[in-house]
């Protein structure tokens, strides 16, 4: 896949993906908008720059693997895969419908190109990623494994079992990305169940911890670059994100974790996305 290195193009791509996320969720009538928008930049950076993959050959053995542990943000994964060329963009509008390959949470049995695993029960994805990374080591293969985790998800005990095992087996081919938006369904993670000090926790488990602004492509790509230099440790990127990023009227509002817009809100939300894109591009030029 041809990489996009230009920040402006990456930004535009991420807003096209956001628009598809919004439209597919409106059409679906249910789903998780906030987290999906918050991860659009990370997904764009991964699929259009960082990952070694071939959308036209989804089962290519040497591909980097991406494990979406937080299955509920499937809309951003689907939209990114479609925009990368894994399948037709029109199929996004079958999201959550009967007989669709785009299940509410990813289902591998539906054979949607680009889906590495079923997910949706929180806490399980990092273990699967560890298994794949061990496999790569056993076979002396160069592919890397990326796992997308939620910050609320870190409250699951299995995550820390997996973290311990990744360090024990020195999996420097494993990169976990934490979507640190500070929110979960019940409210702020700090109110529901404190997970800080986060970097220190991962470091104490034997990981290299990096932090970045999850909406700044320069910072995201730099973090990926740093991750490549790890010799014997797994790497976690704590990506600080804004739930609902791009639609400022819903940003940082946990009530939008599992909501979709009403018919009356759509036009306004689309305008907000266009406007935010313009601001982002302007910021980049200044």
């Amino acid at each position: 896949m041809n990489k996009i290195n230009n920040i402006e193009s990456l930004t535009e791509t991420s807003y096209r993906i956001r628009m598809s996320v919004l439209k597919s969720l409106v059409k679906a009538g249910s789903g998780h908008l906030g987290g999906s928008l918050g991860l659009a930049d990370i997904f764009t950076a991964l699929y259009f720059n960082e990952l070694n993959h071939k959308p036209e050959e989804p089962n290519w053995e040497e591909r980097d693997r991406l494990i979406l542990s937080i299955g509920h943000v499937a809309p951003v994964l689907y939209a990114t895969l479609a925009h990368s060329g894994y399948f037709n963009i029109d199929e996004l509008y079958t999201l959550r419908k009967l007989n669709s390959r785009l299940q509410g949470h990813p289902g591998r049995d539906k054979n949607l190109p680009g889906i590495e695993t079923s997910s949706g029960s929180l806490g399980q994805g990092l273990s699967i990623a560890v298994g794949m990374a061990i496999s790569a080591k056993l076979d002396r293969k160069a592919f890397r494994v990326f796992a997308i985790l939620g910050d609320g998800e870190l409250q699951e005990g299995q995550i820390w079992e997996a973290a311990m095992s990744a360090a024990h087996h020195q999996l420097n081919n494993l990169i976990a990305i934490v979507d640190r938006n500070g929110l979960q369904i019940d409210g702020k993670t700090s109110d529901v169940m404190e997970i800080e000090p986060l970097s220190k926790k991962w470091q104490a488990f034997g990981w290299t911890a990096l932090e970045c602004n999850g909406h700044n492509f320069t910072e995201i790509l730099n973090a990926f670059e740093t991750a490549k230099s790890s010799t014997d440790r797994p790497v976690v990127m704590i990506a600080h994100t804004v739930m609902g990023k791009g639609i400022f009227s819903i940003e940082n509002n946990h009530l939008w974790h599992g909501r979709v817009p009403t018919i009356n809100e759509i036009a306004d939300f689309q305008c907000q996305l266009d406007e935010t894109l313009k601001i982002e591009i302007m910021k980049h030029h200044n």
Partner: protein
Amino acid sequence: MDEIIRDLIPTKTGFSEGVLIAGAQNDSVVVLGSDITTSVGLNLFANKYPEKFISLGIAEQNAVGIAAGLALTGKIPVFATYAVFSALRTTDQIRISVCYNNLHVIIGGAHAGISVGPDGATHQALEDIAVMRSLPNMTVLSPCDATQARILTIKAIMECRGPVYIRFGREAVPDFTDENLKNSIGKAQVLQDGRQASIIATGHMVWMALKAARILKLEGIDVRVINMHTIKPIDIECIVSAARETGYLLSVEEHQIYGGLGSAIAEVVVKHYPVPMDMIGMNDCFGESGKPEELLEKYGLTANAIVTRLKNLIHSFPR
């Protein structure tokens, strides 16, 4: 049968030999260790193939996820620990990471049944069959002795394509099956033919059923003994034939009567050929500490108990 002296071997020994044999035949086999490697017999593999033995410590949920990741990248992972942990502590991980993905992962459940003995209720898996057989895509095996455990383990690794749960016990038990006997996953074995009733047993209870059949024969009752080593997919044809040809069915298992072998048989019988049936197993209760033979006696899992229950069944529903 009793006249011949049988070797006493734990079923886990058969499992561990099976993993070793399959590992020698297929380079993709990897074994996951959950600390009690020797106790479940996987030390044989770990010693022979240290590079393909992955130590994961006491963290079974993670082990199941790692097994899924390994299977997604072409490995055939074997994960075994005590059944209370491998099947029950990890049920959601098995459901989503393994079964929903339909991955070829072998899950071994050791120390199943009440004959685990002195460790008591926490370590006696009595619900694993019920839970494992309810999961889509899962195959559930319950070999009756070490020879069968070895054969079925090899088949699970070499022939199956989806997830497999294999259950075995702790105690050394008679190793009585002939390895030339046909062993096919999903096909029950009729170990002894009979016309007046059928005893369908699984795991260690198959030997008990054979003993019971011998006592019954002396009393003039001629029973068929069936070894249901595959709980899922269950052998419908064998059960229906037994119902049609013998008229009474008695299931025997070291497991809760709710959801186990007895339930699986009843589901078939009710739909295809209803006949009087009784179920021997744990009656909705936990086990406790004691010697295996004391526990089997107390909870009615002996040859004599099978004899009594079978006669009661026949008397309760005269032809």
